């Protein structure tokens, strides 16, 4: 998938805005939102928030997780753990990029926050590469990847599934007779006993 398609999916997330106008409830297909009261926070889909922001009709309320202390903790935890930690939401990168891109003035410490999110992303991406290599080395038939977000999963396509496909194809075509080691690997800490590396 293209990153923009994942961004499109992420834009359906609900976030909080403070409108500067007053209006009745609006009945969208994806749900009803409002009423809009100037100065009072309310929830809307991210795409609508960005649209209103562009028209200078609202301020965006930064999501709770977009906070230096919270993010520093996440970063430390991500560094410390050999597994992927749970992110504040499934589209954290999309939310960060769109909100910080369109409304950085609405986010306190925007540039520091941008840096720490980018650090978290980098740590996770490098962990992802190591995990992929480990998965291929230890089996390459199955992997568990809890807590990876869609954008992160997309970044290993088509490389990882294609390599696993090739492996399976060779196994099938060459009719390997030696017993294979357990085709299992794990990216994550949660879950049962079937995914020890």
């Amino acid at each position, binding site marked *: 998938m293209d*990153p923009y398609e994942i961004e499109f999916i992420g834009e359906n997330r609900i976030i909080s805005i403070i409108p500067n106008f007053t209006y009745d409830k609006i009945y969208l297909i994806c749900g009803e939102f409002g009423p809009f009261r100037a100065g009072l926070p309310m929830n809307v889909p991210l795409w609508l928030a960005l649209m209103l922001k562009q028209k200078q009709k609202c301020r965006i309320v930064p999501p709770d997780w977009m906070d230096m202390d919270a993010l520093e903790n996440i970063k430390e935890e991500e560094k410390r753990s050999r597994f992927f930690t749970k992110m504040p939401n499934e589209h954290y990168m999309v939310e960060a*990029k769109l909100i910080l891109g*369109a409304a950085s003035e609405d986010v306190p410490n925007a540039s520091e926050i941008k840096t720490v999110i*980018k650090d978290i992303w980098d740590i996770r991406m490098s962990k992802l590469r190591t995990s992929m290599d480990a998965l291929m080395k230890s089996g390459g038939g199955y992997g568990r990847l809890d807590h990876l977000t869609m954008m992160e999963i997309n970044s290993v396509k088509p490389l990882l599934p294609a*390599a696993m*496909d090739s492996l399976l194809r060779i196994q099938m*075509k060459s009719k390997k007779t030696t017993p294979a080691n357990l085709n299992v690997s794990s990216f994550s800490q949660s879950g049962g006993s079937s995914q020890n590396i």
Partner: protein
Amino acid sequence: MEFSNYLSITDILVTNERIPCKFLHDLPKMGFLDPSAADDDLKAGTNAEIPIWLAESLYTRRPPLVNVELPKTYKDSYREILNADACTVDLHKLGQHFYELGCYVAKHDIKGEVGSTLINTLRQRFRMLLSASVATDSISAMQPLSASERLQAAAAARTERNLASWLQRGDCPLTTANMVANHRKRKRAEMEMF
């Protein structure tokens, strides 16, 4: 590595590769298959290299007319090198359809060692694909890769590029004053995100 469709060019190329075979029966008028033979007829016991598509059909006859032998790149000495460190091998030079050809050959290797070498090689070399997909000097990173590995690394590099351009697009949140003062920093920040 989807190469087994009827109209797959890769499969046509691979099955056109020649592999060593030993003929098990006398074959009249087939001497042309062995370039070193002066005779019109092919004698039992002759060794010759013939295309896979022909070898496969002669082998599947009952009784088989040929015995398929391992090409040298799939024999002990090469297998040892590959199993020791597959990443040092230039597969493009060794045979650009190393895996695909290997799959045909492996069926004739009773001990299954070719098959496990192929799997082992693919597993080890995965990290070469990983680094080729982000290499700044992609030409030299791609060079030692087999044809199918090159395709996979190129696809991965495309993903990386798309992701990088997604990360870079958008409004830079720094102000004008900062832009002038920190031109270099800004440029770097832009490269990294948003």
